[in-house]
């Protein structure tokens, strides 16, 4: 779906964007060296993915070395946003700290084993239904957290490139961290990256109810008058004054 959207965006506005899938059925890279060779060959703007915190950290390190951006779409590990942060790394998946805060703030009483997610296939409002239906129709399965973060990361990249009129990583960093830059992730609020750790501000969903009939409850709650406020979204996760992230490392 991301490939089709990238193609559509370049069809509308010109330019050329190449999205290379590295794993899965059309596996083209199996080792870090092979991946790095592709990044070098294509002069890639960004790398997305990683299976776990260790792999994400390794990819971020390699991206940094190559002057390429790294988009974390799978690891909620707080350290990646803290001591291990990088100026070239951006986190589309919520942090563990955001999930913890959401569980303690959730309006309904939350069971001890309650889960918190970035996305849910039953979401309906703010165009979530359209996105969920498009995904389900395309792949025959519901959109999960990682399908959503992967989809949004690609969208954030091509949108930033279109607005910057370049794929040059440092120019994209400038766009991504500008305080007026916002993205729409079909969550009903403008989303943006925190300048102090490059975590994407976003509401998350606490799943409540009976097993088999879980219902996503959006956190943090906002009134119509402050739904676009970054202050409200910054109620979740690590604030600027508590952040262990230092860019110069």
């Amino acid at each position, binding site marked *: 779906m991301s490939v089709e*959207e990238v193609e*559509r*965006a370049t*069809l*509308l*506005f010109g330019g050329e964007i190449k999205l290379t899938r590295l794993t899965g059925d059309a596996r083209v890279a199996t080792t870090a060296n092979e991946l790095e060779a592709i990044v070098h060959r294509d002069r890639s703007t960004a790398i997305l993915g990683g299976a776990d915190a260790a792999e994400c950290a390794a990819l971020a390190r390699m991206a940094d070395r190559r002057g390429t951006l790294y988009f974390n779409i799978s690891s909620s590990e707080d350290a990646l946003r803290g001591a291990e942060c990088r100026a070239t790394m951006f986190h589309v998946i919520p942090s563990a700290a955001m999930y913890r805060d959401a569980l303690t703030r959730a309006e309904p009483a939350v069971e001890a084993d309650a889960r918190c997610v970035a996305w849910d296939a039953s979401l309906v409002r*703010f*165009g979530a*239904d*359209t*996105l969920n*239906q*498009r995904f*389900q*129709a395309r792949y025959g399965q519901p959109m999960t957290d990682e399908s959503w973060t992967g989809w949004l990361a690609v*969208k954030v990249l091509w*949108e930033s490139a*279109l*607005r910057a009129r370049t794929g040059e990583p440092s120019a994209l960093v400038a766009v991504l961290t500008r305080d007026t830059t*916002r*993205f*729409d992730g*079909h969550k*009903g*609020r*403008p989303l943006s990256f925190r300048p102090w750790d490059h975590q994407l501000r976003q509401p998350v969903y606490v799943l409540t109810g009976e097993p088999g009939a879980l219902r996503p409850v959006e956190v943090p709650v906002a009134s*119509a*008058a*402050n*739904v*676009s*406020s970054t202050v409200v979204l910054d109620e979740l996760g690590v604030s600027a004054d508590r952040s262990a992230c230092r860019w110069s490392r």
Partner: protein
Amino acid sequence: MTIGRGVTATLAILALPVVWVPASSAQRNAPLLFVSNEGSHDITVINTTKNAVVATIPVDGRPRGIHVSPDQRRVFVALSDEQPNEQSSRDAIVAIDIATRRVVARYAIGTDPEQFAISPDGARLYVSNEDAGTATALDIRSGKAIATIIVGIEPEGVAYSPDGRWVYVTSETSNSVTIVDARTNTVVHNVLVDLRPRAAAFSPSGRRAFVTAEIGGSLAVIDVATFAVVKSIELERGEGKPVGVAVSPDGKRIYIASGRTSTVSVLDERSGATIAAIPVGKRPWGITVSRDGRFVYTANGLSNDVSVIDASALRVVATLEVGQRPWGVALSH
């Protein structure tokens, strides 16, 4: 003759389903407001002189986009089923004859039709196909699709320029407006706008177009001659969630329905300044202005009513109960 027999006869008259009123006099006397109710699958008809519901027309599907034909004889309604990605017999645009209030034509037009626009000469109709990322041009007389055009991702709003030359299609996910030359049915330009563009409207002069960006909380002003965004107007200090947009007949004011804040923003066209933010019913989406510019109507999806705004007093002067989840409004005159 006894009194009892007379009463019986009166009851028989009351049982008749329709009281016949000549269409021409009905139209001359009272502009009608048509409201599409996506929850109750019907169209509420309101006499705007009396602010009274005069009829409810059931439709076969979930009605959303709604427009009156330029000749004032028909109201066109986009209908869909509840399965957005599958085309079924319910996915269609239907034409309802205003005089008889009956469906007189049905156009199969891809999956899940939501928004469309009718050309000023009444010959054509442009509809957005959300899941296909296309817009289809339809010849109304033959009922045939004459062109399918690639637009942005999740296309939504459609608007014709007053001279019939341009069609604007807004696409929610790619944050874009596709500008189509309606003479050749080809894309001439794509414009990047703010987040989640929902609807477009032209000034009566045709020189400017206005595009709402729901998540961006802003209104883009596009210069029609150069295709350029000349201004982006922040609404309600960025907290507005603009969806529907309508321009007053004299072109001096822009009315914007902001769903999540349940307000209508009134803007001065020339300066872009906000004149008022008027509280209306819950979650207004569809919006239209009367031909004389005196009243503005909104379809309020969560309060199941229509707000009637007095454009001089800048306040709601009537709230009319309609069907379930009203979506769009259209006026005949």
